[in-house]
């Protein structure tokens, strides 16, 4: 065997150990052999160079190892040196004897297992060593888990490996409790059903809406990119796209996607630390932290999360301390590959007063524009929402509503109204009912913004990057006219000013020009998506000031 001094396979090692056992058995007493040799097998042979070989002995406990070193190592060393025809160095490791080599002649354990009740097992980590009475002349060790490669049939049932993983543990239900029909606490089904429960609880704590999932999100051309990216992010948070920046007008489904990301991450792992808030809440939180001198706590809170979801992030623009803190939070999370998802009503470069370093960071991730839903998508959304509310809307009615309503959010309102009409007043869903609801919806929505006309002008000017004076002035370039019309439209629509009054704000124009502008925009809004987005963005900024 000396010619194979270079390397030894497991089988070689087992073979050598069997030979060594046969030799050693003649040199020492049976008790010593059983305690110090048989249960402490050779498990590896490794050439050390210069003709030396390292022989690794695996002992079940430190007591074995120290005692063998003291008392028996001479015999082992001698035997192995003779067998291998090389100089041998002994090395000891403590290992559970899950798979060890046994002496071929070892008498088979006659009973496969020892009852844990009748045995008086010592504090062992191996299966009980108590032998069944009257079964064997050799005390103690016969019930030990010795696996013989030559005689595998002897090895049944006594060994249950300590290092088995949990799933293996639960499946090997060799344990027969007093209660045969009680399910295992750690079975896959129990773990799964509880993890599902916990995901729901966590989502509620985080503030995610349970109905905002990918399953309830209608996908079409205007939002399929966003949907795909959000799905990817939620399946591999921190690695797919980071940060993910979703932007688009009111009611295009940004918030829905963001909640869906959160919900899906929790579904995959309910213990993920997710934090969800709006840009406004983030701002308020910082302001409060600074006031209460608890800035450190704030930092810990935001920087310890694994997924940060911030809705309407444009709110932090123009607030220096907030942007500063957000910048550091952002960097800290990104450094640890923790996922960040942001939504905004406009792309980063259109967010005024946003710090450049933040803008560049937002733009470094994946930015996706979600367009206003198309007519088909609006119909689909309507049908999804209706089925969520358990009402059935015929296709022609659904299309009628979709053609008259532009945003998904309004669709939700109409579905709710329809539901209450149907359920409370027992009415039938038909064209008349829908017309009625649409009318009341629009009149209800007329809520005057409490802003000064100057604010409107400033907002419009900022939005289009034009001077206020130019908007009010006489020049009629295409850009200016559009901005002027938008401003007039907003003054009428949102501030309910009279056309005469509006005219006066624009270099004393006639009320007919204001009327013309209003109609122009009103018509444009039906199909022009850019205009829709402009108006909804402006409305949002104005709403923000109004409060």
């Amino acid at each position: 065997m000396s010619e194979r001094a270079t390397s030894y396979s497991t089988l070689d090692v087992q073979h050598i150990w069997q030979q060594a056992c046969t030799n050693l058995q003649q040199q020492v007493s049976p008790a010593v052999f059983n305690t110090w040799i048989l249960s402490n097998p050779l498990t590896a042979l490794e050439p050390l160079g210069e003709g030396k070989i390292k022989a690794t002995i695996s002992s079940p406990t430190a007591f074995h190892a120290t005692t063998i070193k003291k008392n028996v190592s001479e015999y082992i060393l001698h035997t192995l040196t003779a067998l291998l025809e090389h100089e041998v160095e002994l090395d000891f490791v403590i290992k559970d004897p899950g798979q060890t080599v046994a002496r071929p002649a070892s008498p088979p354990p006659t009973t496969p297992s020892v009852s844990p009740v009748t045995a008086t097992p010592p504090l062992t980590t191996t299966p009980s060593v108590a032998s069944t009475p009257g079964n064997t002349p050799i005390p103690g060790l016969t019930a030990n888990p010795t696996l013989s490669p030559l005689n595998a049939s002897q090895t049944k049932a006594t060994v249950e490996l300590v290092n088995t993983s949990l799933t293996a543990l639960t499946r090997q239900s060799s344990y027969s409790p007093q209660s045969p029909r009680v399910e295992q606490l750690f079975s896959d089904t129990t773990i799964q059903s509880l993890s599902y429960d916990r995901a729901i609880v966590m989502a509620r704590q985080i503030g995610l809406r349970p109905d905002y999932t990918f399953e309830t999100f209608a996908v079409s051309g205007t939002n399929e990119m966003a949907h795909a990216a959000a799905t990817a992010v939620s399946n591999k948070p921190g690695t797919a796209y980071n940060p993910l920046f979703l932007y688009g007008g009111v009611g295009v489904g940004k918030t829905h996607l963001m909640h869906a990301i959160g919900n899906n991450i929790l579904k995959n792992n309910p213990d993920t630390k997710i934090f969800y808030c709006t840009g406004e809440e983030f701002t308020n939180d910082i302001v409060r932290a600074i006031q209460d001198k608890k800035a450190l706590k704030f930092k810990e809170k935001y920087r310890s999360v694994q997924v940060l979801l911030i809705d309407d992030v444009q709110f932090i623009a123009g607030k220096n301390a907030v942007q500063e803190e957000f910048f550091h939070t952002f960097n800290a999370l990104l450094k640890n590959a923790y996922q960040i998802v942001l939504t905004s009503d406009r792309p980063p470069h259109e967010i005024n007063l946003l710090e450049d370093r933040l803008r560049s960071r937002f733009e470094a991730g994946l930015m996706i524009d979600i367009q206003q839903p198309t007519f088909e998508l609006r119909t689909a959304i309507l049908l999804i929402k209706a089925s969520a509310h358990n009402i059935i809307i015929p296709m022609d009615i659904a299309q009628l509503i979709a053609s008259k309503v532009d945003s998904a959010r309004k669709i939700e309102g109409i579905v709710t109204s329809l539901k209450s009409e149907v359920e409370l007043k027992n009415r039938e869903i038909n064209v008349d009912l829908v017309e009625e609801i649409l009318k009341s919806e629009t009149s209800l929505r007329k809520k005057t913004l409490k802003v000064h006309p100057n604010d409107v002008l400033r907002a419009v000017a900022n939005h289009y990057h034009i001077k206020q004076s130019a908007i009010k002035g006489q020049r009629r370039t295409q850009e200016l006219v559009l901005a002027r019309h938008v401003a007039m439209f907003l003054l009428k629509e949102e501030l309910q000013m009279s056309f005469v009054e509006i005219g006066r704000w624009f270099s004393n124009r006639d009320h007919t020009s204001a009327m013309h502008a209003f109609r122009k925009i009103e018509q444009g809004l039906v199909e022009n998506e850019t205009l829709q987005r402009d108006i909804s963005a402006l409305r949002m900024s104005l709403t923000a000031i109004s409060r």
Partner: protein
Amino acid sequence: MKIDVLQENLHAALQQLSKAISSKPQLPALACVLFQASKDSVTVAATDLYLGIKTVVPSTIHTEGQSAVPAKTLLEVVSSLPPGQLTLDVDGTTCLITSQAGKTKLPCLSSDEFPAFPELPTELATLDLAILNDLNKSVSFASSVDQSRPVLTSVLLRSEGDALQVVGTDGFRLALKTYPVAFPLAQSLLLPVKALQEIVRIGAQQTADTVKLAVSTELKQLFVVVNDTHFFIRLIEGEYPPFEKIIPSNFTLEVTFDAEEFAAHIKRALIFARDSSNIVKFSIDETGMTCTASASASGEYSGRLDVTHIQGDAGTIAFNGRYLLDFLAALKPTKLWFGMTESLKPALFRLDGVEGFMYVVMPFRVNE
């Protein structure tokens, strides 16, 4: 070796070693107690190779030396002798014990045949014995006694933030307690319940306040020191079940009720549950809880218990009544909080008004 020792002291020391002496030893030496008389102290030690205990016996040393004396006979002899001074004189393979009552001669073995003890690490962490006492009382009852799954025969001690979390489970129920103290070891520890009970017992005898701990992952050895007594425990290896995942987090039914009354009902119900795997059924509605058990041969029991309803719908669930009694006997609570969702999902018990303790029990499938 020749030493003078008080019978009381030797008897106490030998009793401390008793759990480490195997009843069916593989080697004659393992049935022995090792005496080691050095210049300034005498220690006695015993081991079954998986648990080793070593302790100091206060004595007067005439000559140094070492010897392994058969444990069973020695203990019988020493416990039969009257209190007072004994002289142990070992000469070769004979141990002579002289007392006022008489002389005893025992054959003994050379100390060379006795297993060598691993060396105690120099750096030891400290833990309050009061905590070990408490966790032994409130967690270890839920651990398994089935040696085929060694991981479950121990309790898990681990750091959870700044706190120490201790868990015991047998795969059907689980007890968890959190202590507001830092866990002194770097990694979590599986402490065999039998060793824990021995440490607690000896700690109480010696009126110790703290224990010292060290773990050697290389030697797979746990070292515990209580005053002069050293424990050498084979580390239990393996993965503890993912206990966090089976602690219920939301409940569709939450109630509180009197624990003693609850225990009394279960005891009565168990009389009739003996033949049916100890199944006791609980039906909870807004006003109370009905505990029932029935056996076709011996009869049936039904008892009503008042509950303070917190929230949720009515519910029905069945448990192994033993699991509940174990818990009630170990913790002796006065008032219980109970939360469940579905009758097949794990349910949770808490001690009403006591933070940090949880008991999760897997219910039975009940055939309606």
